[in-house]
């Protein structure tokens, strides 16, 4: 693994197989000439499994409380009402939403700001120390966040950051960094070295190369890592749970968890809160799905 990164392969991966590109469907057409009904049916079955809990969530959130107890869980709501959403919004949901947006934006900003220069150095420098560091980074992928929660808690309290949004941002960003840097470094390795040389001939300093060459070329990869980091930050639970306490710093996941106790048996309201919390991230997902799907496999398999 180490040697693989120290001795860099030629910049253009000529032997790299096409991944999900135009070649794939052509290949399949040659092998199977008729549409595969069985495969379609089974794949649809899985989509139904995926959809049922989501449908249940939305349908229940639109029910009246009395209807929730009597109606069949999968029947459409008899008289759809937004009352539950009103309850949730009056219960402090908007503040949690704002906190979540702040935490997510700050985490993504920090990760991109640190990962882009680091990935540039890893992809372009032959320094042994940088490459060793990269191996260390790969080891960082295996550090379980949960197992380090106690010192993270101690450090955050000693830095007087306990119960602040910064307390959530720092560890979340730190644990998102290894994957982000890996994905970015892999994408920068694919940049033909002639482009860098052309820039150098023009007398560009490394910062200019970073700004005018690396940033534009790495834009798809940057979008990918931004979406992945945003997902992690938006959905994070254990760091907010351990590192914050008051209502002012409560993020959405904690808010939901809190609603679970607060609303007791008012499940429609609880599910309305769940729906509201998931909505922004689903929208982001649908907008950025192309980058997310390509990013899944960008970290390995080269």
């Amino acid at each position: 693994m180490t040697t693989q990164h120290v001795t860099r392969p030629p910049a253009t991966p000529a032997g790299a197989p096409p991944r999900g590109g135009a070649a794939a469907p052509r290949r399949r057409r040659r092998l199977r000439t008729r549409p595969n009904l069985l495969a379609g049916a089974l794949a649809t079955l899985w989509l139904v499994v995926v959809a049922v809990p989501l449908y249940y969530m939305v349908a229940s959130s639109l029910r009246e409380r009395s209807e929730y107890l009597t109606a069949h869980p999968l029947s459409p709501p008899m008289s759809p009402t937004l009352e539950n959403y009103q309850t949730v919004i009056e219960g402090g949901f908007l503040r949690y939403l704002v906190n979540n947006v702040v935490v997510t934006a700050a985490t993504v900003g920090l990760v991109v700001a640190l990962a882009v220069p680091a990935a540039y150095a890893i992809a372009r420098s032959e320094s042994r120390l940088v490459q060793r560091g990269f191996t260390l980074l790969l080891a960082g992928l295996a550090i379980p966040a949960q197992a380090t929660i106690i010192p993270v808690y101690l450090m955050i309290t000693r830095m007087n950051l306990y119960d602040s949004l910064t307390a959530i941002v720092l560890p979340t960003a730190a644990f998102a960094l290894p994957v982000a840097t890996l994905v970015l470094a892999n994408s920068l390795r694919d940049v033909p070295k002639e482009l860098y040389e052309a820039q150098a001939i023009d007398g560009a300093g490394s910062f200019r190369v970073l700004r005018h060459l690396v940033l534009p070329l790495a834009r798809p990869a940057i979008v990918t890592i931004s979406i992945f980091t945003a997902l992690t930050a938006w959905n994070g639970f254990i760091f907010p749970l351990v590192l914050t306490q008051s209502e002012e710093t409560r993020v959405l996941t904690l808010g939901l968890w809190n609603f679970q106790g607060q609303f007791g048996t008012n499940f429609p309201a609880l599910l309305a809160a769940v729906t509201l919390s998931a909505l922004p991230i689903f929208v982001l997902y649908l907008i950025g799905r192309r980058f997310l799907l390509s990013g899944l496999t960008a970290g390995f398999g080269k």
Partner: protein
Amino acid sequence: MSTDLGTGRDLRTDDEPEAPTGKAVARIPWRHRLSRWDVRLSPYLYVSPFFVIFGIVGLFPLLYTFYVSFFDWELIDDNPTFIGLENYAILLADAQFWKTLVNTVSIFVLSSGPQIMMAVLLAALLNTRLRGPTGWRVGVLMPYVASLVAIGIIFANLFGPNYGLVNGILETIGLDRIDWQADRFSSHVAIAIMVNWRWTGYNALIVLAAMQAIPREILEAAVVDGAGAVRRFFSVTLPLLRPTLIFVVVTSTIGGLQIFTEPKLFDAMPGSNNGGSTNQFQTITLYMYQTAFEREDLGYASAVAWVLFVIIILVALVNFLLTRRIATTGEGKR
């Protein structure tokens, strides 16, 4: 910083025009390297902020956990007492710890095994000629996008003993209701279903990418040899997928052994860290959290965390060595 990466790269190319590959680059004499020491400064400048953050919040805490585990350390305690290995000695005789370990492994086996089999099957299905491939993938990845807390709340509802959908379905088809939270094994099954619902699609897409990277000549050769679709899948596709499969196994091991949010939210009592009335579905991580922040015993919780970390690393290491071996064999076959 007067010099830079771009120039450094350029210099080397000028000096050694015959060196297009990385191997040749590594053979540059040491003296030559030394003379360009300045060129090398900017990479460090770029890479260091990353390592500062990563070191402070990622690596250091791991070592610090080890340190804390040798102390009798209360949550709000400025003078913790050094007690050596006592926490570990207590841990070995702690019945609740062993129970949580069994729970964790049980949930892990119930989730990872079926999950990876389903993921491969799903990938094989998506690899056939289906209309609108992107639409399928978007749908399949959907559960991965939702937060664990959201999924936990929804599934705790679905598996509810009275109004839950799952028990409703069981009753409709003439089976008995199951108290999913109360029974040890059923609670593990329910949590495993939750985990599988979230991760199967994610793993399927990773496997799918590997399937599409298989050169079509190999599959066509198998067709010429008269191999049917099933035979092709088991004799050609599956062996070539092994590195990817092991990767999926390793990542699901690391994730599966530290499962926390699902059992925490599955509890019928909101806010409880017990993992059920008799700890029937308390995992190691949940136990660690309870010890640290409910019983306020940071030293003991650190010992639990470190044991968990060692278990994860051992399993991951075994898998990594396996991956390398199998990956090499795969290269040979090609």
